[in-house]
């Protein structure tokens, strides 16, 4: 078992998993905000676009989407970089979940805050940017944190299109050593450690953002 843990290819694979998570999270983030904002638009057609994106890409498993990008699109004349197929599938999928989080958080900001922004004559874009979003973002963080871990777990599917992530490296190691159970147990622990590290980071960000919401605790009030 020790030779499995010490295998450098597993560590390389873990690094690829972390990178993939970050790329996909960046894409998901970039999609979540515009489509989440579309969900609270005053215009029905804008809301419909948001709804469509969310329903389709939440309904599609990332694996199905990834296979489609990887195997099917090239036949329709569009060849994607392997890495891009994985990141695009994960990003589109988690972007749809994220859009729902963004929409939910924006709707959770009390309506009176929006009204105060109108009463101060802020323009529609300013109401969102200066009043709603700063209050909504701290509400999104806990769910975003959980979704980041979900996304990290989901990256394991890229091994199926031969991106050399942790799962792919484990498959390689299994076929060279024949120790299937041991190899997969070891990488389960590695995934677990990555997940816990990500959660710690998110909790830290949550604590910081609580302050921006003005939820200053007793020591702050004493200043």
């Amino acid at each position, binding site marked *: 078992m020790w030779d499995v843990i010490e295998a450098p290819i597993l560590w390389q694979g873990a690094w690829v998993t972390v990178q993939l998570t970050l790329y996909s999270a960046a894409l998901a983030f970039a999609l979540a905000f515009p489509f989440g904002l579309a969900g609270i638009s005053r215009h029905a057609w804008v809301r419909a676009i948001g709804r469509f994106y969310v329903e389709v890409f939440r309904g599609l498993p990332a694996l199905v989407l990834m296979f489609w990008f990887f195997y099917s699109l090239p036949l329709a004349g569009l060849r994607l970089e392997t890495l891009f197929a994985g990141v695009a599938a994960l990003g589109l999928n988690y972007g749809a979940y994220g859009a729902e989080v963004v929409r939910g958080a924006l709707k959770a900001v009390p309506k009176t805050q929006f*009204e*105060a922004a*109108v009463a101060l004559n*802020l323009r529609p874009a300013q109401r969102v940017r200066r009043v709603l979003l*700063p*209050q909504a973002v701290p509400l999104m963080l806990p769910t975003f944190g959980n979704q980041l871990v979900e996304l990290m777990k989901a990256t394991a599917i890229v091994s199926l299109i031969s991106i050399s992530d942790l799962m792919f490296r484990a498959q390689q190691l299994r076929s060279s050593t024949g120790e299937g159970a041991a190899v997969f147990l070891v990488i389960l622990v590695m995934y677990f450690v990555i997940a816990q590290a990500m959660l710690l980071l998110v909790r830290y960000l949550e604590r910081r953002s609580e302050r921006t919401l*003005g*939820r*200053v605790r007793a020591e702050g009030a004493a200043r």
Partner: protein
Amino acid sequence: MEPSDASAGVLPKGGTPGIRFDKVVKSYGGNAVLRGLDFTIAPGERVTLIGPSGCGKTTILRLLMTLEKADGGDIWIGDRALTHMDKGGKKAPPSEKHLHEMRKQVGMVFQQFNLFPNMSVLRNLTEAPVHVLGDSKDEAAERARELLEMVGLAGKADAHPSQLSGGQQQRVAIARALAMRPKVLLLDEVTSALDPELVVGVQDLLRDIARQSDLTLLCVTHEMNFAKDISDRVLMFAEGRIVEEGPPEQIFSAPAEQRTRDFLQAVLAT
């Protein structure tokens, strides 16, 4: 009118418009709240709306602040309609741009203060002047500090709303509304959410502001003494219409309508 202290300098002066409601209709899901509401407020006049709770007084203020849309009728601020635009002699629904222009004249103080919890007190006061009126940051901050001084919170500029008492938050909200240099100020039950011991302080502040400015003031309140104090005229509102109006002395001492008498009796009994 004797502006007794320097703070009067930050209050808006001149160019005050009047307000006119013309057969305004508004209902919520089949429940008619305003049934052809008519009334006029002269420029610089201070008017209080009284009447049974939950009958739509707040709706009148919200319509003026464009937080609600009227189902019918016209609302005028000065010589321009809030409810429609003039497009080649024809009425057209108001654009966001038109509403933006109209809102420049109006400020509102809410029952629940509605301060922005993510901003310091000072930024609550400077955010809109900087980003809507285009004031420079220094200019806005300076005015904000003067306003905070006027409402008695000079030391709280860097505090967060959550660190203030209800009374202090409402003072900040009043200052925030004034920071936009409105000509019309709407007060929506501004002391209803306050602890009893904080009510008088906020009322005194508003009375001073009313005396030292020529703001057109429209106020909804359940505090009859405050209504008596602050207003030139009182409107008794019930069942979607104004049922009686007059100077406060007349309404409170010799109401003509039975409904007004019943209402005042009920309110004063508590």
